[in-house]
């Protein structure tokens, strides 16, 4: 762990116990995930629906209770904290959610939503100080301080997501966990929010965990990317390397399937991957074996461990 590391996650496991058709299943949403996050770094998590990327984000600050693992932040294991000390950590590791329509209380003014964390933790010296901090935070995300008195329904989607970010920035945290922060927005607005996140990272030296299903967005703004498949990180590395020279067959297929905005680069036929297998009853061996063109022998029996393949790029595949 280098001195620049702000968050270190080792062996994180989160299991959901679900009942389907009178049968109990232990669904491993996050299975043995390890990574570290440096100060001022943007780390992206990508993968398809249900791969566990959101659960990773939520497990880090115990919004979903993990079953095992160690999350080191500020010298403590977050997973061992409870009560007041856990709430203090959550003041420094903040979440931004996908849908700014659903994550803002429609009956509260913007000021009250933005100041909520400060109110709970009694961070304001006086009502004047409270107003001042709200105004400063709104300015920081590119909103006029007059928005403080408005209600969420008076704002557009992009403005609401700015409020969502403002709420996470009061007080200034060390880490933001942004769960699909631009998925509900139109492209022209999406670009505004992405630029805002990049700008905040630069000005406040924020570390950001950026969770998204959109590979182009992740490839554009993240420094490093972790690709998840059925609860496991199958590849992690520098964004540029990972995008240009993906190692894991799943990463390759995923990047290939992204529709490129160029009619001369059309995806040919014959790349059919098929459907992902059931998450309830996983077979032994590599979880990707069912869809993998390279799978054979050992892939069907042993789970591949994630290992360094070249430089800083790690992948979990027997064939590498």
């Amino acid at each position, binding site marked *: 762990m280098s001195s620049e590391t702000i968050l270190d996650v080792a062996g994180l496991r989160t299991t959901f116990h679900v009942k389907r058709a009178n049968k109990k299943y232990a669904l491993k949403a996050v299975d043995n995930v390890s990574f570290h996050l440096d100060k001022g770094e943007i780390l992206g998590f990508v993968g398809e*629906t249900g791969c566990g990327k959101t659960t990773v984000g939520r497990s880090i600050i115990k919004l979903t209770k993990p079953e095992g693992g160690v999350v080191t932040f500020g010298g403590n294991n977050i997973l061992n904290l409870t009560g007041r000390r856990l709430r203090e950590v959550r003041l420094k590791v903040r979440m931004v959610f996908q849908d700014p329509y659903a994550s803002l209380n429609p009956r509260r003014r913007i000021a009250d939503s933005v100041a909520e964390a400060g109110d709970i933790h009694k961070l304001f010296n006086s009502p004047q100080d409270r107003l001042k901090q709200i105004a400063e935070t709104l300015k920081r995300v590119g909103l006029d301080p007059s928005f403080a008195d408005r209600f969420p329904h008076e704002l557009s989607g992009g403005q609401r997501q700015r409020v969502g970010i403002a709420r996470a920035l009061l007080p200034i945290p060390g880490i933001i966990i942004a769960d699909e922060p631009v998925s509900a927005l139109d*492209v022209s607005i999406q*670009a505004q929010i992405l*630029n805002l996140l990049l700008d905040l990272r630069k000005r406040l030296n924020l570390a950001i965990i950026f969770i998204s299903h*959109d590979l182009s967005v992740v490839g554009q703004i993240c420094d490093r990317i972790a690709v998840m498949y059925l609860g496991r990180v199958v590849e992690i590395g520098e964004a540029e390397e990972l*995008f240009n020279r993906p190692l894991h067959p799943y990463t390759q297929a995923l990047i290939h399937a992204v*529709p490129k905005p160029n009619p001369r680069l059309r*995806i040919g036929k014959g790349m059919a*991957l098929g459907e992902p297998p059931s998450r309830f009853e996983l077979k032994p061996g590599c979880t990707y074996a069912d869809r993998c063109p390279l799978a054979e022998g050992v892939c069907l029996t042993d789970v591949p461990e994630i290992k360094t393949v070249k430089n800083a790029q790690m992948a979990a595949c027997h064939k590498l």
Partner: protein
Amino acid sequence: MLSVQDLTVSVITGKTPLDITRNVSFELNKGEILGVVGESGCGKSMTALAIMGLLPKTTIAVRSGRVLLDDQEITHLEPHQRVDAGLSGISMIFQEPMTSLNPVMQIGDQIIEALLVHDRGNMRAPAARAKKLLDLVHIPDAAMQLKAYPHELSGGMRQRVMIAIALACNPQVLIADEPTTALDVTIQAEILSLLKELCEELSMAVLFITHNLGVVAQLADRVSVMYAGQIVETASVEVLFEHPVHPYTHGLFSCLPDPTKRSEPLQPIPGQAPLITEITDGCAFAPRCKFKTSACLSGSIDWTGISNGHKTRCHHPLKEQK
């Protein structure tokens, strides 16, 4: 085959009608895929519903303009009138297949339901035809899957079932409204290649509505870009992506994330799209446009031809290459 002429769809509940789409015109030829791109609220779905005759009529209706299928006007025909007149050659699929399918009905029966509507109930062996349709959209074990309920299928399979139902009437035109938006990229790629294949095999025309420029580039032959209820630029897919001339189209491209150009910052379009209540005279994009002049602020903006098949509603089309 399908011709839409000056279609204006309006909310008619207030004192003055509010236009959701304004003078939308396009032609769709046999076997052609036309992509309609635009952001939320630009009127792309309303155009589709108007063509299908599915507008609520008492609140939102076609105020002017015409929809012609094979030179016959269908603008104001109710869906059942279209079936009676033998003009039911347009089908539609929607974004979220789970909300379009009946959750308590087997998918086989849902396909047969569509077959019976169009064949007036005197059809032989409907189950066999339903199975054929499932084969056509590449659903494995079609005979068994006829008995499945929608919740037993994955998102991609449900969208295939929707396409099978849409194909039950042997449509000449298929309208696909964001059919892959709810799907993962790997599944999206499969549905896109299925649509392309069906379009060729059945020489069916497709009107493909999406907000995703990547998807349009992959699939469409021609593209129309919509902004605030109007088509602002139309061209073949190659020309539009190489040489967009409307400042809005150009702006859409510059704010697309591109992992191969990480060093270049994204250039968002400033401001946001106007609400239908805010649209004034002149070009609707003018408030966000850096090329606007006084001429852009009044009157209606007519088409400017750029090259064969490429036209734009703009007084100052861009000259330089993207």
